[in-house]
């Protein structure tokens, strides 16, 4: 069996998916938006696709499939927001399992997603769409405070800013304007000329990891986010699972995510949903047609025998038999290490001490010496990840925090 894996070159996900394919004995064709150095040497295994333009990518994939008839493709998987849309377009073009293209596009665009979900009665924050060239003072006069200013396309909460007053709103709006004027952000075109303004929803935040099979949401894990995400910026930190939320509330969250997926028209493959839960119940903040980002999937293992999330995703795309989808019994967690200070990274101290904290399974420093660390809201790259596993979620959370306290990022300030 051969799978077309859409891997943007800036992904953290390459190792996990390549390893999952190896474990399953699946041949890979890896598609990226920039050519591999080995593309000419392995034309069946490497291909360049225009991943940011799904229709073009689908035509390119069609041409590739015709040229490589001897290496038939049996499935396609995207690993992030952009490639999820490209995967849907390619699946439609090649007759492979996937989401409808319109559904994948709707999930990709924050405004389109909210519009569809609100119309379907899924609880989402009240929102308005604005052009970046509008006068923020006029928008502030009508904004619901506290509110959140968001870009339509950026990932990892980049550019997301809370404002409690009109003056804060104007500053937040102008700051987002600057972020979206940066070349790599502006490259997404029209979405980079707009901002979403939505009411701030109080409450605890949760992340649901799921797999859609013929439209039915199978919940793989529900993560608590124990650090309050109250702004003004929304850099993630700790995820722990299983959730400590009451079973009835967890069921409400799962039902909310299912309603959102159905409303968007998503039917197949991984979903990652961010929700808030307060006295009024669950609120869908975002639902993406992709698995959890960064290195966070390493926190998840499934029965039997430590099956990875990536193996489940590949099995599903290839229509192979799925194992139980039951997460292991132990508690698990990951900390996306926050950027504490802007500047050029010189070294990271305390890694060895962090690694030997009881229950800590790994400390992965992904930033390299010389890399410029950029705090949120301008930044979107975590300098590393800490993983822990144990009998209780409290123990896991404590271990993550203890390990983090050992780490010191030595930075040459700007």
């Amino acid at each position, binding site marked *: 069996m051969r799978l077309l894996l859409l891997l943007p070159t800036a992904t*953290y996900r*390459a190792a996990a998916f390549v390893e999952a394919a190896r474990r399953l004995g699946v041949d890979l064709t890896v598609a990226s938006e920039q050519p591999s150095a*080995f593309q000419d040497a392995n034309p069946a*295994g*490497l291909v360049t696709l225009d991943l940011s333009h799904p229709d073009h990518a689908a035509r390119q994939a069609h041409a590739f499939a015709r040229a490589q008839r001897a290496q038939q493709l049996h499935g396609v998987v995207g690993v992030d927001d952009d490639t999820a849309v490209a995967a849907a377009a390619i699946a439609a073009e090649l007759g492979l399992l996937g989401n409808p293209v319109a559904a994948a596009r709707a999930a990709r665009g924050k405004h389109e997603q909210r519009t569809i979900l609100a119309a379907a009665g899924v609880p989402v924050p009240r929102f308005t769409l604005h052009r970046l060239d509008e006068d923020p003072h006029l928008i502030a006069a009508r904004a619901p405070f506290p509110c959140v200013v968001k870009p339509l396309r950026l990932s990892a909460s980049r550019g997301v800013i809370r404002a409690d007053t009109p003056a804060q709103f104007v500053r937040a709006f102008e700051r987002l304007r600057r972020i979206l004027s940066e070349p790599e952000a502006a490259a997404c075109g029209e979405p980079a000329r707009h901002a979403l303004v939505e009411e701030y929803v109080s409450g605890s935040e949760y992340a649901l990891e799921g797999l859609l099979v013929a439209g039915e949401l199978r919940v793989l894990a529900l993560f608590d986010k124990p650090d309050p995400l109250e702004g003004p910026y929304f850099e993630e930190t700790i995820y722990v699972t299983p959730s400590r939320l009451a079973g009835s509330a967890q069921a409400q969250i799962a039902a909310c995510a299912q309603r959102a997926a159905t409303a968007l028209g998503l039917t197949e493959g991984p979903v990652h949903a961010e929700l808030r839960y307060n006295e009024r119940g669950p609120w869908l903040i975002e639902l993406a047609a992709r698995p959890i980002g960064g290195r966070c999937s390493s926190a998840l293992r499934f029965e039997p025998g430590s099956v*990875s999330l990536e193996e489940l995703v590949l099995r599903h795309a290839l229509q192979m038999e799925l194992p139980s989808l039951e997460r292991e019994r132990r508690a698990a967690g990951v900390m996306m290490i926050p950027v504490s200070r802007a500047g050029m990274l010189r070294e990271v101290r305390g890694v060895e001490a962090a690694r030997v904290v009881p229950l800590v399974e790994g400390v992965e420093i992904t930033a390299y010496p010389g890399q410029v660390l950029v705090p949120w809201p301008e930044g*979107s790259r975590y300098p590393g990840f800490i993983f822990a596993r144990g009998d209780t979620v409290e123990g896991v959370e404590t271990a993550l925090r203890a390990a983090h306290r050992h780490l010191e990022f030595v930075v040459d300030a700007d």
Partner: protein
Amino acid sequence: MSPADVRITAEPIDNGRCKFVVSEPLHSGGVRRFASAAEAQGSPLAEAIFAIPDAGIAEVIVSGNLVTVVKSGTAAWPVVGKAVGQAIRAALAGGQPAVAPKPAAAGNASDDDTLYERVADLFEHDVNPMVARHGGRVELIDVQDAVVMVRMAGGCQGCGMADVTLRQGIEAMLQQHVPEVKGVVDITDHTAGSNPYFAAAKK
């Protein structure tokens, strides 16, 4: 230096593989790969690692200050890693070399030597000119029992697409040009890469 002064950093690659970077050199005679407890006889470090109970140790590769351990058991790396750390410290504290020199006529040495030459030729004329386009370099460290050991440098070291380069590029070329090769092992310390060609960002 006392065992307590030895610093060991564990870098799990996945559930089955983990690299241990040691502050002291363990073996200066190139790379040694042990695929069974029997092969490890005479090398105290490898013997001790294979003897870790319930870990299902399948392979131990020692190169300079780097130990790569492959296991098939489900025990977590923090558990197995502590035992590996103890084995490393004990080996360094012992009176004899942690790893014995590679036997001159061991196993399929002559076959490996032939393979080494063919792989080296492929690396020199094909692989390295290709990765050089991305500022990278792939060093052939050794061939043992038809398994090729490589170390990546330059733009490849720490690159977000290093696994793709290894599996879809280097391994595919080896399958095509030197089909006798049974596998490729990357012994690179990717965390030390300071100029990766593709750097990752959370998506």
